[in-house]
């Protein structure tokens, strides 16, 4: 199993699967391409989700938190950040006051794309960037 990611639009739909080369069971590498997609869709993006292989309630790493903060600083607005494990699904958002202070909540409602994200984590597909037509 390796980490995978997906961008979600304001309709709650996935529009960009982020499956770059170099993903591991514990990381997704820095890529310019992800930022380019976020910036090009800055008016439509609601947030980004990524998977943590394994079970239990996932928690953000320091890398996750500083990436959240950097992207939001560049965008000039806040996003939602979801993290899934094989069993649980949380949503994080900035709660302040420090730049890396993010609170989370679990949800009983699990969107369909969570299953797809877990599938991409289970199947090690490297170097794939899947861009869906907005609204599909």
């Amino acid at each position, binding site marked *: 199993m390796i980490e995978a990611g997906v961008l979600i639009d304001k309709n709650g739909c996935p529009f960009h699967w982020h499956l770059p080369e170099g993903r591991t069971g514990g990381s997704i590498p*820095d890529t*310019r391409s992800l*930022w380019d997609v976020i910036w090009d869709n800055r008016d439509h993006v609601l947030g980004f989700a990524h998977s943590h292989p394994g079970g239990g309630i996932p928690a953000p790493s320091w890398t996750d938190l500083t*990436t959240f903060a*950097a*992207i939001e*600083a*560049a965008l000039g607005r806040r996003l939602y950040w979801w993290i899934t494990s094989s069993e649980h699904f949380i949503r994080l958002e900035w709660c302040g006051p420090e730049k890396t202070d993010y609170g989370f909540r679990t949800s009983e409602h699990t969107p369909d794309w969570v299953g797809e994200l877990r599938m991409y984590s289970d199947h090690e597909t490297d170097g794939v960037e899947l861009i869906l037509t907005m609204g599909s």
Partner: protein
Amino acid sequence: MEEITGNLVQSTEARVNVTYSGQNGDLPDPVFFEATDGDVKSWVTEAVANGGIPGIPAASDADFGDFVVDRFAATEDRPYNLIQLRPKTPFGI
């Protein structure tokens, strides 16, 4: 040399572009293309703090420590070197 908005950019220099606070802008003056990442971030931080990048509002607390410096050599379509500062995007450990 290529002239960009009145400021000549020599072959050893680069235009610096930064995205911050939902806006995108360039440092008014070119910098040495081989400047260190630390120097680039320092110049951009000072410029943003003072409102010195057209299009980007002044922000005294701007912090580019978690931004990445990307460098692009001149091309036929863009006949000058380019340095871009954008947020990092790794996740996990």
